[in-house]
């Protein structure tokens, strides 16, 4: 393992621009109120390279992106494209010619059709828009990128994943020679990631410069040739990917010379352990049918499957957000009345929803209040809330789950994605649930935070909580005792402790078991494989 001291640190990117530098940001500082998002940071991306930008949640990556794409003006510092000073902030067209971007936050307009979103502000030249033609072009574009979405559908009807695919297709279609992707894979399943990477490699081969942000370090090794690390708003290093080992990269990001945790084996769950969560014949039209499952106290069960496999609907049914068409849910021996979140909470089911922006958090309320919403009745008599008591609980949560916030009273929308996700998890665990249901809890969460999130989940399981973890991420599933795979609304496979990545991937795609492990150029087994960089 390389120690951080041994990394040769290149100086700050030089002010004079070397030829062949697509973009260079120098000494950029950006503050949001009391928060310094970037402190004297910089990045320099060579033409034609595929550059990774990594760092923990809140390190300032997205802020740097917004500065590189002209959405924010840096408080100080400069941005140059191909050696030329960046255009004026108001000249959006000039920016768009230089750089295209898939932002971390959706820039899809829900009320417009997919076709119009794809060609926003370039639907036509001066003349009128030919809608039929536009839809046809959109259809072709989507086909090109393998996105099966009706170009005439309102974008608001798409699911998170489809929206992201549309955004990627849009950015790629702009024909810019420099493309930024801010965590494009956080919401994609394995096959979609595969397709994306194929596309990225082709783009890189044709000389397009890419800036790629991800919390999946193995992806960095898979597609990137250079990596820049930000930590606490500062630039830490820029190196060829091949020269930085996985552990060194984590060390640069976290500032700790400690490797990532290998999950210790958990004591096996015995058949005597009482069943905490049981569903019998659970079904929801158009989503899933005949789901019978059992989760024992202290057991962590992963559920995976491709998009539209029904796994999310299943989890949302357990949480009370959806009412099943039939079947029964029991916690312990007691049936849970269906379709009611309060009933599920009362029965002891804690829940981490899929989309933290849409259904996870109340943006204007404080971290403290968001974290304690379901236990608001515990801070005083008759529903009264004694502020001191609540703050005490919140401060404990902030410490326990390592939530990076300026204060318990800070509005939760001032937090970075990973930290916001920790607030949602803290909230789900706040009730001390017997059953914890999570959907994609580590999407968009940095390596270290991911560890602490999963650590918290395992700690809860160790205390006897039954955990049902719905996820596409192999890292998440690895922390599980067993994994159920859903395909087209049914549980089609169950994997014990020692599965291979390829087994899961095959089951997810509905490929018969005998073909498991046969051929597959893995998109997802690159962990600890620095040699997989570039192409």
């Amino acid at each position, binding site marked *: 393992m390389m120690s951080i001291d041994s990394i040769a640190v290149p100086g700050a990117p030089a002010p004079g621009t070397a030829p062949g530098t697509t973009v260079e940001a120098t000494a950029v500082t950006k503050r949001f109120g009391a928060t310094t998002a970037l402190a004297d940071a910089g990045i320099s991306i060579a033409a034609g390279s595929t550059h990774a930008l990594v760092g923990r949640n809140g390190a300032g990556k997205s802020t740097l992106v917004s500065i590189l794409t002209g959405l924010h003006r840096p408080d100080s510092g400069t941005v140059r494209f191909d050696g030329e000073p960046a255009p004026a902030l108001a000249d959006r067209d000039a920016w*768009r010619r230089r750089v295209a971007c898939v932002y971390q936050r959706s820039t899809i307009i829900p009320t417009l059709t997919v076709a119009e979103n794809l060609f*926003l502000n370039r639907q036509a030249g001066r003349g009128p828009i030919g809608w039929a033609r536009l839809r046809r072009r959109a259809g072709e574009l989507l086909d090109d990128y393998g*996105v099966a979405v009706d170009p005439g559908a309102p974008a608001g009807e798409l699911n998170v994943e489809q929206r992201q695919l549309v955004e990627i297709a849009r950015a790629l279609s702009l024909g810019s020679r420099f493309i930024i992707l801010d965590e494009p894979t956080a919401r994609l399943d394995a096959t979609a990631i595969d397709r994306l990477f194929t596309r990225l490699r082709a783009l890189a081969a044709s000389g397009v410069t890419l800036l790629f942000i991800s919390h999946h370090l193995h992806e960095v090794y898979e597609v990137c040739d250079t990596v820049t690390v930000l930590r606490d708003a500062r630039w830490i290093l820029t190196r060829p990917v091949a020269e930085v080992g996985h552990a060194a990269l984590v060390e640069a990001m976290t500032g700790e010379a400690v490797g990532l945790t290998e999950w210790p084996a958990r004591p096996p769950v015995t058949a005597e352990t009482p069943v905490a969560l049981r569903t019998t014949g659970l079904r929801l039209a158009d989503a899933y*049918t005949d789901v019978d499952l059992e989760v024992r106290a202290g057991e962590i069960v992963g559920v995976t499957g491709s998009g539209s496999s029904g796994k999310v609907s299943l989890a949302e049914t357990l949480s009370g957000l959806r009412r099943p068409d039939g079947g029964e849910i029991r916690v312990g021996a007691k049936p849970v009345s269906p379709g009611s979140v309060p009933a599920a909470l009362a029965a002891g089911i804690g829940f981490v929803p899929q989309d933290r922006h849409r259904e996870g958090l109340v943006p204007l309320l404080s971290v403290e209040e968001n974290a304690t919403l379901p236990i608001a009745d515990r801070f005083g008599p008759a529903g009264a809330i004694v502020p001191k008591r609540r703050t005490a609980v919140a401060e404990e949560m902030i410490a326990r789950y390592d939530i990076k916030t300026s204060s318990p009273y800070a509005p939760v929308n001032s937090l970075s994605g990973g930290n916001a996700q920790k607030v949602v998890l803290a909230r789900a665990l706040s009730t001390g649930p017997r059953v914890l249901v999570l959907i994609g809890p580590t999407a968009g969460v940095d390596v270290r935070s991911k560890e602490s999130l999963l650590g918290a989940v395992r700690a809860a399981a160790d205390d006897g909580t039954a955990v049902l973890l719905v996820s596409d991420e192999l890292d998440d599933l690895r922390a599980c005792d067993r994994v159920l795979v859903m395909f087209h*609304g049914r549980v089609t496979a169950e994997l014990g402790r020692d599965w291979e990545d390829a087994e899961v991937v095959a089951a997810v795609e509905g490929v018969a078991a005998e073909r498991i492990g046969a051929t597959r150029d893995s998109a997802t087994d690159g962990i600890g494989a620095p040699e997989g960089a570039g192409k």
Partner: protein
Amino acid sequence: MTGTSTASPAGVAKTPLPPGGPFRPRLRLAGLRDLALVPAILVLVVVGALVDPVFLSTANIINVLQQQTELSLLVLAEAIILIGGKFDLSLESTVGLAPALAVALVIPAASNGLGTDWPTTLAIPICLLIGLAIGAFNGMLILRLGLSAFIVTLGMLIVLRGVQIGITGGQNLFELPPSVLYLGNALWFGLPASIWLCAALFAVAIVVLGFFRHGRSIYAIGGNADAARAAGIRTDRVVWIVFMVAGVLAALAGLLMTGRLGSVAAAQGQGMIFTVFAAAVIGGVSMDGGKGTLFGALCGVVVLGLINNILTLAGVSAQWIQAIYGVIILVALMLARITTGKAQD
């Protein structure tokens, strides 16, 4: 739209299936939503014909249309602003102030003018310019100072009405130059000029909002301003222009009303804004921005006009007419929403 995924167990599509099954029905449904009020209009026409055969006479139909022209221009203005995600309460006061001020600037002091005695031929351009200026001022406060559109335009509503009373001393202006009276009275090809004007303006606006990049950018801004900005739309400029256009439309509505009623009443336009919102929202324009069509808004205007006309023809007692009117609006609204099968936002 029920593409059940369980139905095709073997389908190992490489790409995720769209959640909504086959493509076409969705498209057709979206179109249908625009036509949500058409059945309501048909019902009203039948009811009207049953109430009194006069209802279907050309004269009566023309009356209904003409009476709604001013309202429809305001609805056009408000609908564009709502689609852009903003709000304007002050339009109704522009309806009064713009013609009042324009007239006061051109008529002699003896007829309650301001004594400036500008050439009377300038009355119409001045009136429209005043509307433009009011829109520009609203836009400036909202965009530059970052104030909420609701409260800025509420303040302006009071201020503008107050200014009108101030400069006219609360008098109705009777001595109007003929140019000011013209538009609200003239007949072109046998139809009131105001109907032609409205039809033309709606047609232009429908085409611009439906088929031109600048028009579409209003939808984009109303749907997600950040996304629109990221896509290179100059959101502030577009919103500002929208407010100015709306101001001009309101001033034009004021001109038409002035011509039709033959004077500028001190209270001209007062109380109209509620009806404007009712028409726009019944017509399917969302208060949340980015949603709705001008054709729908126009249908909303027609529905309200027909209800009014039928209630008058039916000779409903003065005592209950307002309650009945309100109930019909509520019911029309529910029907429009239930037939399109969509919850509103």
